[in-house]
């Protein structure tokens, strides 16, 4: 009984801020501004209207999508090559390479804000979405290599060797045998990378300064008071819209990852 009660408290504390955000987003303004807050909503979409029609909303949305997807695709291509080399081949320097990836994964990116700014300025990459794409590519790269390597190692090498014996080239073997088995892993990894890039704030805030239309969603949202003032309904609607893709990704991921794991279990 007390355990159930504690469970309820933990659940409420973790969910409440999310609930309060969504609730405020759907609440009519007069209820938000009433002296006694309502804990159940009466439904309105007016705040979502305000948020969506805020100046530049769609370009921020597009920019965020562009840099996140661009960075993740790039890191997926580059990382799957490296992951294959690490998982399937024996070569001099392999251990050193693995160590490099682990160290890269530990890097505190916040410490690189200043040199990145200077480098971007020197190479004329300031205020360019392509610079952000490159940075998100690098931030997600180490993690992608590590995860993909794990997924590739889970695929029995015998399958590939059988294809090689049958006369397939190394590339064909990868494309026809490894890749289809790898697809769930690729999806899960890229979705995690997508979330990281979608949420990134510090670099986007620092590197996009002149052209305000080139900002990404998190940067725009963090300056909500200059857009919405004290219109908390619209602010919360914008925050909800920002969280939505992440939530969708988490839902997809849940099913996919379990599917990937069970598929692996059956193959033994």
């Amino acid at each position, binding site marked *: 009984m007390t355990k*159930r009660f504690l469970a309820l408290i933990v659940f409420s504390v973790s969910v409440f801020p999310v609930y309060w955000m969504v609730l405020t987003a759907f609440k009519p303004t007069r209820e938000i501004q009433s002296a006694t807050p309502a804990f159940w909503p009466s439904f309105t979409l007016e705040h979502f209207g305000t948020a969506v029609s805020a100046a530049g909303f769609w370009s921020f949305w597009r920019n965020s999508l562009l840099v996140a997807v661009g960075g993740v695709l790039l890191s997926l291509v580059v990382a799957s090559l490296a992951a294959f080399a690490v998982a399937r081949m024996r070569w001099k320097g392999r251990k050193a390479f693995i160590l490099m*990836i682990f160290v890269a994964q530990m890097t505190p990116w916040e410490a690189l*804000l200043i040199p990145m700014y200077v480098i971007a300025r020197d190479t004329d990459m300031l205020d360019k979405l392509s610079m952000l794409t490159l940075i998100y590519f690098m931030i997600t790269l180490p993690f992608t290599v590590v995860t993909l390597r794990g997924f590739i190692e889970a695929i029995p090498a015998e399958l590939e060797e059988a294809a090689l014996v049958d006369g397939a080239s190394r590339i064909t073997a990868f494309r026809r045998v490894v890749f289809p088995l790898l697809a769930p892993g690729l999806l899960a990894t890229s979705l995690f990378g997508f979330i990281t890039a979608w949420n990134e704030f510090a670099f986007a805030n620092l590197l996009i300064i002149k052209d305000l239309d080139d900002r990404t969603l*998190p940067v725009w949202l963090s300056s909500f008071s200059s857009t919405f003032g004290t219109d908390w309904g619209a602010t919360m609607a914008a925050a909800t819209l920002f969280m939505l893709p992440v939530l969708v990704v988490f839902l997809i991921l849940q099913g996919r990852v379990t599917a990937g794991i069970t598929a692996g279990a059956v193959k033994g």
Partner: protein
Amino acid sequence: MTALRTGPALEVPPVPRARARRITIWPYLLVAPTVLATAYLLVYPLVRNVVMSLQRFGVGELIRGGADFVWFANYVEILADPQFWAVVRRTFVFTVVNVVLIMVLSTAVALLLTGLGRWARLMVMGGLVLTWAMPIIAATTVFQWLFASQLGLVNWVLVRLGFDQFEGYTWFASGTATFGILVALIVWQSVPFAALVLYAAMTTVPAELYESAKIDGASGTRMFLSITVPVLRPMFGLVLCLEVIWVFKAFVQIWAISQGGPGEATTTLPVYAFQVAQALHRFDLGAAISTVTVLMLTVVLLAYVRTEKAR
């Protein structure tokens, strides 16, 4: 790092000799893009940061280029600045308070999860995953709304509970209150991950251990201290390490909520480095502070890894 050191030796499927010789260039071609990207986008900025910290680098140098080396002058300048040491102290206090709360709460939540029925457990885990999934900037926005002076929920609850001084109280004008809100925010965001990892580790402890301890008449506390803690020590260590890194270098939460203010009540090292570089245009000093931050973090973690290996 620990995982790498303690992990089993890496096994590579044997490759037939003739083939091995023929494809020997391939692995290097395959890792080349990763190595090049890391060199340009990670190693180069790190080196550049160190170089900048040894130069005089202000707006003039940023625009014209051609910075002069002053070697350790920047380090001398920041290490002689009492403000820097105040920031260092604050960063350590901030890290310790957050990490202790995170570790205690997440252990408690993980233990709670092991004792729950299937349905309640799924509910709590669902809630934790939802919190975990919330983007940092969305969370900072919601916390600003919860603690808003006008119409904010927290003030309303406190007034209802009889604390009338919270009528229209402006949380973000007080240094201590802002510090407290940031701690609450970071703990709230960090507990789900730590709790879920610790819970996953706890489920791997063989049930027989607990059963035989129970037969011997051990209490719940005793079993936790003598079975759960020793078995899970490496996992605790890993989570502790990760949380220390994450809290120590926390930047986005602080910047989005208070930008280090009011005054400098919430200025920690990463925020301080950024402020010095951006607001004062002293990229050299900012770079020096960043370098010192990374060194401190490395020293703390290496000390940890050493004690861990000594065990």
